[in-house]
């Protein structure tokens, strides 16, 4: 193709060929535009559906009672819908997952990017990425069979099915994301920075701690937010190991039911358009707003970080 073009540029057909090229470009341009628009349409569609199915729940239960109510009896007569237990459970589980996965994940990323020899990095990173591909139901099984008895005996609990077990499993699932994205971010820090740091007499640790990590902070923040998003949205694992109790959990060692598990375990017997169906969509709406807030905060942090390190 290229050879033909170059031989033709001197002759007359050059103009026609260029027009054809422009047409092709236009086509590809509009294709990309359509692809971009499609995601926005899908997003708007999801929001519209959540609002349409979820908002009517608030005619039956006012929003404050829905959010702060502590009783969830969807199949009683009359039903009561209060999602405080689920909301607090989601917060606990996410908190545990973040508290475990962020320090380990960032440390692991710093090791891989700054300390590890190339050979180690090139073997370890793909293995970590395989961890991300383990299906969540398999993680649920591992939590149920291996981790929950361990947690039960280690913390002397009545049952190993609790928020802590779920949080630990979720931390394992968000670790690969945090490590992978943070490591990429650390590697984009220019070598000039490191060299300048060494030239000033800083040790390796001081360089990593005061130069590389602050330099890559925007990327690391994005990594953490992605990990948090994974933990908030994960369903199957928490359904299997979080215990599913309906009380507002006061400690992470209580059995609990996060919002995703509440939707998954309730949607099957909800008749389309019924009260329970609407209430479950309203939980979905709450969950959506929560993840949206996490993303917005992440965007703000990223923006501020970018301005700080503008170069």
């Amino acid at each position, binding site marked *: 193709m290229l050879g033909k073009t170059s031989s033709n540029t001197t002759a007359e057909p050059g103009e026609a060929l260029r027009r054809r090229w422009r047409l092709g470009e236009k086509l590809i341009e509009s294709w990309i535009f359509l692809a971009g628009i499609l995601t926005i349409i899908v997003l708007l569609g999801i929001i519209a559906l959540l609002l349409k199915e979820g908002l009517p729940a608030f005619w039956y239960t006012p929003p404050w009672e829905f959010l702060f109510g502590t009783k969830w009896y969807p199949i009683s007569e009359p039903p009561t819908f209060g999602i405080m237990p689920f909301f607090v459970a989601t917060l606990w589980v996410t908190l545990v997952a973040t508290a475990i996965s962020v320090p380990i994940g960032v440390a692991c990323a710093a090791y891989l990017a700054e300390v590890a020899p190339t050979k180690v990095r090139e073997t370890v990173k793909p293995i970590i990425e395989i961890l991300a591909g383990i299906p969540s139901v398999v993680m649920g099984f591992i939590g149920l069979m291996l981790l929950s008895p361990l947690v039960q005996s280690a913390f002397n609990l009545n049952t190993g099915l609790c928020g802590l077990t779920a949080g630990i499993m979720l931390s394992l699932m968000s670790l690969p994301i945090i490590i992978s994205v943070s490591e990429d971010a650390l590697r984009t820090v220019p070598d000039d920075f490191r060299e300048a740091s060494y030239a000033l007499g800083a040790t390796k640790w001081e360089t990593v701690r005061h130069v590389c990590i602050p330099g890559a902070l925007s990327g690391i923040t994005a990594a953490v937010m992605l990990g948090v998003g994974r933990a908030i949205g994960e369903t199957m694992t928490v359904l299997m190991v979080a215990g599913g109790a309906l*009380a507002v959990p006061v400690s992470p060692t209580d059995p609990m039911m996060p919002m995703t598990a509440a939707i998954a375990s309730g949607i099957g017997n909800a008749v389309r358009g019924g009260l329970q169906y609407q209430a479950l969509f309203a939980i979905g709406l709450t969950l959506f707003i929560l993840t949206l807030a996490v993303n917005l905060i992440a965007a703000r942090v990223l923006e501020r970080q970018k301005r700080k390190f503008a170069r």
Partner: protein
Amino acid sequence: MRKRLFIILPVVVVVALIVTIIALSGRGGSSIKITGSNTVTPLSSIWAEEFMKIHPEVSIGVSGPGSGVGIAALINGTTDICQASRKIKQTEIDQAEANGVEPYEIQVATDALSVVVHPSNPVSELTIVQLSAIYTGEITNWNEVGGNDVEIVAIARDTNSGTHVFFKEHVVQMQGLPTEDKSLEYGGDVLMLPSTKEGVSQVASNPNAIFYPGLGYVTEEVKPLAIKQTADSTGVLPSVQTALDGTYPIARPLLFYTDGEPTGVIKDFIDYCLSSEGQEKVIEVGYVPLQ
């Protein structure tokens, strides 16, 4: 190389299409979809397997997410047979009729809803009132019912489950007893698990746990409790005999629901389930036959 790929690709697609069409038309027979109760699933699965051996042209799919799911599927018209471990509610019948579905009830077996604990638990019998208090969270320690001084881990099924609903009405709310109280609900500390099997395996591994599986799910690893209707009556262990002679207090029907009276292959299948051969399978699975 690239040119050859362009020839191979359509060939592969066409072959795949032809194979799919042949596979679809080759089946030719009919299919039955059964969904609903987790309790009934082991029974329906055996019936389906045996029926498909006799009638290879029929394919039957069984899934057991819970009676509530099955009844919702019946109302939404997405299943042929709904298996249920509780009776359909009046509100559900109204919803079904609004959708043009007429629920038709057939009892296929009986279950003695068993209450199980860890084999090391010294408690061997409980009254309905005590069970109710355990599941509402009023009694939280085994020593209040004659056991060790440890906290009770009360395990239940989630709200999809017919067993959840049956247990709530007949045990938690004590239906039919003088102490009946319709306002009672499961306590906040009760664990709600998505499957019966998970509940049984939790009890098998946790000395403080209590759970209520159908008789067919009771294994050697857990200990069924004798149930006392009132404090002065004698405790009755769940079994085929005690369910048949009516002495076991929390026996319940296992049901099939269809849209209107069953016809055609669905009728053949249900007739097989109710035949003496089908009822023998009921005992094999561990439930109670109709006769």
